[in-house]
């Protein structure tokens, strides 16, 4: 069976959930081979085996942390060629897409981004035009390079003992052209990662700048917090939490929008959520049209009451 390469998304060996999703998808199409670039493999080994990596390629080099994506793209290209991989799966993040773009050119392969599902023959499903259409597509040239959105599939354990192979990569001059001179890790919030969360509570201009009620409800539900661009542009919440066309795309089980009108650019980032709940004081707000449940009312009273009731029910 041909190998499907899965690029491991990790921070110092802490493997992100999206990687487990990719391994689960890769098992459908071939033999999952994890590609671990950088330091910290010891911390990642067990997790990758637990989710079915039949093989792990480990490349350790300081370049991965010192420069933007090119060293990663070069390492992947070398491995894809030497292993004769039938496809490469990468997480759909800004970095993941940059790697995919360069890799596709290096391999002469077709590339598909933002897949929400990948079938056994590597046919993909995507959601396009602000979620208005579902498209099935297939790469027809070379080994497909596919970036997959978080939450495409539920990670399924499939314990294996991966064969480990340490690989050396010689980087080109092009690999060291964009140097990272400073990196400030984002402060931990203690909440789930926005794109991975199964519940997201978002606030917009209607919060008037007070995200307290939004955060309190999110914490009662174990949810991530999101924001509209109006809230971000007002400086009320960091850009990293923006949901929409130029922010994050989320597809949680439950999306709760409070004080958000539902502009197309916002809908583009949350339209495929399973259940949508809306709190807005304007009954004419367009976002009600997509709500499974809506409350016409002031979020400053409705959210705290809901939070209190949830806490009560939780005991």
């Amino acid at each position, binding site marked *: 069976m041909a190998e499907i390469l899965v690029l491991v998304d990790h*921070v110092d060996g802490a493997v992100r959930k999206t990687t487990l999703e990719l391994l689960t998808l890769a098992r459908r199409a071939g033999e999952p081979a994890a590609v671990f670039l950088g330091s910290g493999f010891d911390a990642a080994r067990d997790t990758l085996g637990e989710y079915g990596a039949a093989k792990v390629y480990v490349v350790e080099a300081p370049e991965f942390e010192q420069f933007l994506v090119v060293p990663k793209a070069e390492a992947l290209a070398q491995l894809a060629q030497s292993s004769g991989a039938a496809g490469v799966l990468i997480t759909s993040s800004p970095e993941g897409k940059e790697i995919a773009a360069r890799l596709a*050119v290096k391999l002469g392969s077709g590339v598909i981004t933002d897949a929400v599902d990948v079938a056994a023959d590597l*046919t993909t499903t995507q959601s396009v035009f602000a979620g208005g259409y*579902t498209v*099935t597509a297939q*790469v027809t040239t070379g080994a497909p390079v596919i970036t997959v959105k978080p939450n495409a599939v539920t990670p399924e354990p499939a314990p294996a003992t991966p064969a480990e192979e340490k690989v050396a990569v010689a980087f080109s001059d092009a690999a060291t052209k964009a140097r990272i001179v400073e990196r400030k890790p984002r402060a931990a919030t203690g909440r789930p990662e926005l794109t991975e969360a199964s519940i997201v509570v978002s606030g917009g201009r209607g919060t008037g700048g007070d995200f307290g009620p939004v955060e309190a409800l999110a914490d009662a539900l174990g949810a991530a917090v999101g924001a509209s661009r109006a809230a971000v542009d007002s400086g009320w919440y960091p850009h990293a939490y923006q949901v929409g066309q130029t922010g994050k795309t989320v597809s949680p089980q439950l999306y709760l929008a409070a004080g958000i009108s539902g502009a197309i650019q916002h809908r583009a980032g949350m*339209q495929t959520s399973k259940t949508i709940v809306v709190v807005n004081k304007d009954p004419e707000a367009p976002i009600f049209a997509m709500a499974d*449940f809506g409350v016409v009312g002031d979020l400053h009273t409705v959210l705290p009451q809901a939070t209190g009731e*949830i806490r009560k029910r939780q005991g």
Partner: protein
Amino acid sequence: MKIVTLVKHVPDATADRTFTAADNTTDRVGVDGLLSELDEYAVEEALKIAEAGDGVEVVALTMGPDGADAALKKALQMGADSGVHVVDDSLHGSDAPATARVLAAAITKVGDVDLVLTGMASTDGGMSVVPAMLAEHLGLAHVGFVGELAVSDTAVTARRDGDVASETIEAALPAVVAVTDQINEPRYPSFKGIMAAKKKPVETWTLADLGVDAGAVGLGAASSTVREVVKRPERAQGQVVTDEGDGGTKLAEFLAAQKFI
């Protein structure tokens, strides 16, 4: 310094966007088009650099069918110095790799380019891959997702907010930089700008002018294909209640009934 800013002509996102039934490509004929909103930020950034320095030339470049030069016109009205429109019947249905190859050839033909500025994604295809592919073809550094940019005669310094960290990146010129909508506030063309744009030069180049083989681009050479397009069913509106002092309780009841608590 010479800056090329990439501007894509796209169907209006606020109107109905569709696919051409014959070949499942984006319908660019029966729709209103405009300069991709996210490319306005690249044009604005180029103009800011031009205004801050001496002898900075800004060239707007687009690849697209007849009519796509409307995107150039907007860029010229905002303040770009000249425009290049790559248009050729063979280009219909080109995928991202082919688009990047053609744009790379056009940038090479423009010549002596120090900086290529692009949007973070086109608002129609929205793959966010063309700038990195372009950099790969040109053998240049690419910094994407840039929210803050400083340019010297020899290098760029960029800040970008990633998923796990905020990063500062340095790259020597020439380089490709893709900017986000956080970087600036694009200007509206002034009356003076609109009048001046009429006299600015726009060149039209074909694939032959670029020395790109027509067989390497277009639908026939696409490296991926759309098998099926299905319109997503409109979401049916569910129950909406008006808060009469119990809105929050009702919300919690709904969440409990749906097993979220």
